[in-house]
């Protein structure tokens, strides 16, 4: 994480040096601008609800339980689809990274499939599997499998050759190479790949729910559109963002805990 952030600016006032303070300021400024524009009434309330109205919509949906069931419906779809994708990508990516033959066999295919936008598969998935849970889970699976696989393959290819050779000179077997060297060595990159591709999964579940669903955050937004409830649309967008951020932060925390050696 530290590698991506610019060096702390020593000219900043002491109060603003904590890495989160400026970020919070930016957020507050946007919120203030929103409240100001909505409060002055320059924009029709139908198009731009006030923060208070969105908050009220949130309180209402939370107390009725609607918000929580929507969140859990969307999150469960993501977990199922992404979990399946990770389960397939891990052995596939390792095999492609470790074996030139398998890599040459599959890489062109994956490179092609990767450029087919996953949402373009929705019509087919609906024809094949109807409107239930399966097509949504499969959409997330298709949309993340190739990226997960290729990123894991790359991680395996970058395992230092000398670590593998050292293991062989210490008497290690091929199995030791796989389980005791390659696996721990790529763990940080794999977690990071999962974190990055999770964003795509989160996008796809909303897309799937916008198209056809009985529940979920995307479904709530598309219903709100029908009734011109922009407060609920704003609420939906904010919640989608927050849940995504939470998933991202969980992955970072997991990585910090389990791969401290790589930071």
């Amino acid at each position, binding site marked *: 994480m530290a590698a991506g952030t610019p060096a702390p600016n020593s000219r900043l006032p002491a109060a603003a040096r904590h890495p989160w303070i400026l970020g919070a300021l930016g957020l507050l400024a946007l919120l203030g601008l929103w409240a100001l524009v909505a409060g002055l009434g320059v924009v029709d309330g139908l198009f731009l609800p006030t923060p208070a109205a969105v908050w009220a919509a949130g309180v209402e949906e939370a107390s009725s339980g609607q918000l929580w069931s929507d969140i859990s419906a969307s999150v469960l779809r993501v977990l199922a689809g992404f979990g399946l994708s990770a389960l397939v990508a891990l052995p596939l990516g390792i095999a492609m990274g470790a074996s030139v033959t398998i890599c040459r066999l599959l890489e062109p295919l994956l490179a092609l499939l990767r450029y087919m936008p996953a949402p373009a598969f929705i019509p087919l998935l609906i024809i094949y599997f109807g409107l239930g849970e399966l097509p949504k889970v499969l959409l997330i699976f298709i949309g993340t499998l190739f990226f997960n696989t290729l990123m894991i393959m790359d991680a395996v290819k970058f395992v*230092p050759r*000398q*670590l593998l*050779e*050292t*293991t*062989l*000179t*210490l*008497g*290690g077997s091929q199995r*030791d190479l796989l389980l*005791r*060297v390659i696996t*721990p*060595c790529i*763990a940080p990159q794999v977690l990071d790949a999962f974190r990055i591709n999770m964003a795509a999964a989160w996008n796809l579940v909303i897309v799937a729910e916008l198209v056809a669903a009985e529940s979920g955050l995307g479904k709530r937004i598309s219903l709100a559109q029908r009734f011109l409830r922009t407060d609920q649309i704003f609420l939906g967008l904010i919640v989608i963002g927050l849940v995504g951020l939470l998933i991202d932060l969980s992955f970072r925390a997991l990585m910090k805990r389990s*791969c401290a*050696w*790589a930071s």
Partner: protein
Amino acid sequence: MSLVLDSVSKTFPLAGRQVSVLDRISFTLETGRFLALLGSSGSGKSTLLRLVAGLERPSGGSLELDGAPIRGPGPDRGMVFQNYSLYPWLSAAANVAFALELRGFSRSEIRERTAFYLEVVGLADAARRLPRELSGGMQQRIAIARALAAEPRLLLLDEPFGALDLQIREAMQEFLHSLWRRTGLSVLLITHDVDEALLLAERVHLLSPRPGRIVESLEVDLDKQDLRSLRLSSSFQTLRHAVAESLRRLDPELG
């Protein structure tokens, strides 16, 4: 232990033709001896060590360890690479223990032997630290401890101190020398450092570059009780000057 190389050659394909890297290398190394192969870059010395380690196959000739041909890598030949090659996710102790786990020791034996080998390289205090928290010299001592833990019949060192600062390199050379005297290890050292070869090895083979060929062999007849004063002695300086001259003459690029 007896390592016998007989007329070993190695060619690599390059731009559609075969380039000779090693040309009919023959030598033997007996138990407890310290042999150095000294050559500039392009002399194929690293390739030679990789052949002995079994990480590559020769194009011609034979390599035998105790009468059996070398067919692949194995724990009987411990290897120490220039860039330490420690597992970065394992602590110093776990790196050493790794070699013991591969040999199938019990938990308590692993703990005991790990402590022993950390003690041998003088790093018992660093047991719990990750490689990146250790200096280059300390990392290389852990790598040596790990190689020793596999109890190899022969220790292969590939420019082991080449990445270290001069002062640390000299200290490590003294460390390796005393380790060798204490343990009676058989050592094959690859280096381009004339001082290092003469200070540590009993016998030095000079390799010519492109293709690598043994052009000169010498027994190092110096009193090695105290390496630090030996470095400054005139007998050592005279010898190192002569060997450096030979090495220079071998490489047309150096004139």
